[in-house]
């Protein structure tokens, strides 16, 4: 049981990191440690900023 739950957790973590579901959580944690006391962006703001960054810095996709 414990092992199955651990594997499920790993898969969920991998999937969430690959697609981006847990990126905001990671940002908050990182921000709290590196810049304590500074205001943290909301999830909406965070994604807006990230997606808009692609606007001027597009990721090429291969042929």
């Amino acid at each position: 049981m414990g092992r199955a739950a651990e594997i499920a957790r790993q898969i969920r973590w991998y999937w969430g990191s690959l697609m981006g579901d847990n990126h905001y959580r990671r940002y908050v944690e990182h921000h709290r440690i590196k810049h304590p006391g500074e205001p943290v962006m909301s999830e909406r703001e965070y994604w807006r900023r990230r997606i808009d960054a692609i606007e001027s810095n597009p990721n090429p996709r291969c042929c």
Partner: protein
Amino acid sequence: MATPTAAADRFEETEGDVTYIRTDKDLPPVAIVDTSPITVRHRIIFGIVALIGAISWAIIAFFRGETVNAVWFVLAAICTYVIAFRFYARLIEMKIVRPRDDNATPAEVFENDTDYMPTDRRVLFGHHFAAIAGAGPLVGPVLAMQMGYLPGTIWIIIGAVFSGCVQDYLVLWISSRRRGRSLGQMVRDELGSVGGAAAIIGIITIMTILLAVLALVVVQALAQSPWGVFSIAMTIPIAIFMGIYLRFLRPGRVSEVSLIGVALLLLAVVSGGWVAETAWGESWFGLSAVTIGWCLIVYGFAASVLPVWLLLAPRDYLSTFMKVGTIGLLAIGVLIAQPVMQAPAISDFAGSGQGPVFAGSLFPFLFITIACGALSGFHSLIASGTTPKMLEKESQMRLIGYGGMLTESFVGIMALITAAILNQHLYFTMNAPAAATGGTAATAAEYANNLPLTGDPITPAQIEQAARDVGEDSIISRTGGAPTLAVGMSEVLHQVFGGSGLKAFWYHFAIMFEALFILTTVDAGTRVARFMLSDGLSNLGGPLRKLKDPSWRPGVWACSLAVVALWGSILLMGITDPLGGINSLFPLFGIANQLLAAIALTIVSVVVVKKGYLKWLWIPGIPLLWDLTVTLTASWQKIFSGDPKVGFWTQHFQYREALDAGKTTFGQAKNVDQIEAVIRNTFIQGSLSILFALMVIIVFGAGLMMVMGVLRGGGTPLTEDEPVASRLFAPSGLIPSKVEKEVLKQWDALPKSHAKSVGTGAH
């Protein structure tokens, strides 16, 4: 951001064969240098893997008369990859890359929540693979099947091990030591302005032809196919819906919206079948190739000027999801269905060079056609710029750079298998140009039965039945590779999932999957090329300097329009080409891609020499020389060959003379307009061949001069960044070693404090 530190800040501690390096006395180690010799257990395992690989290779190469099971191809590939990754990649790591895990990567130093983000190696592997995998390795091996399965198999596997993976790995290496700079910037920095300018012009024209040919593949797959057009058209509203959902409704719920998107996409594929049966569906979506071409051009322009969140980003999620999922599905399908090869090991066309799919002999055109499955220049644009900004540790580059390309090569092998299990008469019916097959089942059957093929002849009724099976009116001369791959995939997948009733579904699923990520490449590529163009033009100075500002809308519009006009005109040229388009353009696509690889390998070789690793120059040097030989021979033949099927200019002048002589039909051209079209097209194709070859010769020459200068004690210095001490730890390989696990535990036990960087792993 950390500050540069001297080597004195490192604290080393050695226990047996393992050295632990700390950058802070109070923190656990950030790097492990493990020099323990290979264990007996590993020796035995790798020995067995090598043995299985050798047996599989022997069966593929020497079994004649009997049909060969596809599983042997999978085994030969995987065993070769394992050995190459363990030994050759390790050699490259030890002798050239020399990773320093005590130094921070650009991702750690410049972490900014947008593009610089340290990412867990397994996740980054997924990202990198999704970025490099595209239509090329799927389409190229399918077309190369004209020469039989053996030459293609050998080149896809061996070429990847010794050239493609080496290129990806080493470009990743030089870029991550330079803050993740792009290929063009690195050429300018390391080779000077002439080489740099040639590289930029080369990269932009090469991207143009790549985008045009990819778009042409989609057009060929969708022309007169209302089912296909409907399901692809639906991906646009689906993407927009996803974009709005992520922007306004539930930001950050990426998996959730992707699952909804994939469900809608499957619905679009299924409902495409219903729509195609109605009269209005037939008339709305049964579009001609030219109309679809114009739609793609308009789409490419729109996608490049519309906000990213609306179309590009959600499409990217969708296409990543589909790409990884479908390739996995196909691998499972091949392993379960275990199809057998219908194609010969080496066909008659390999020697004669007179095949209908692409003209030219095995050397150099097989290598040109396979392109991305074995060595892809385009990868160097991803291995520089995107991936290095997410890398956690230098030692992970082997897994991501070398390992990522091995996976791509495996995709190429999958594509090769799906083409090789098809009836060979059907294969040539689908892939020969319409001028040869005549377009009807009767003429196509007669044409295919007169080719030097083994196996039973095909009847017109069988051709019609094959089309009905996949829900299409006709599959004759569906050139471009994508439809053939889709037929092969439906052949494999219907045996495992759903039975023959789902054949048509799987065919259109495969078409949709290919078109989806080709379109993602086209819109992202248009945007990337637009930035390169505005960046290159702004360097000219004067009023053009304004183009540097990416928010200056007139500049954005003008550059987008220029890029789309460039690839759009080549696309339309390919669609209306009387000679079939794809046969003359695909080699150009391959040459362009391989020349980009030559630029990347040149810059890597220069860095290797500058770093003083002359003894190991052969590692990037041999693939570079091989690649240059292949591409320049191909370019030479395309420019100078006296055979009109191969040489653009010979063909150009023959048609010109015919026109001057007042002929109204000539060769495959049925009227004066077509003769004029051939004259124009061969002129453009011939000129592009010359331009590509010249740009690459200039870059290679600049590289050679730089190497000579360095050897004589001069040359410009390296532009590597100053190392900065790392403050985080992460394992190198896919599975952490025992020592790495212990260090990970030490890091996990620490309280979350300012000194500790946020790890990205699942701990």
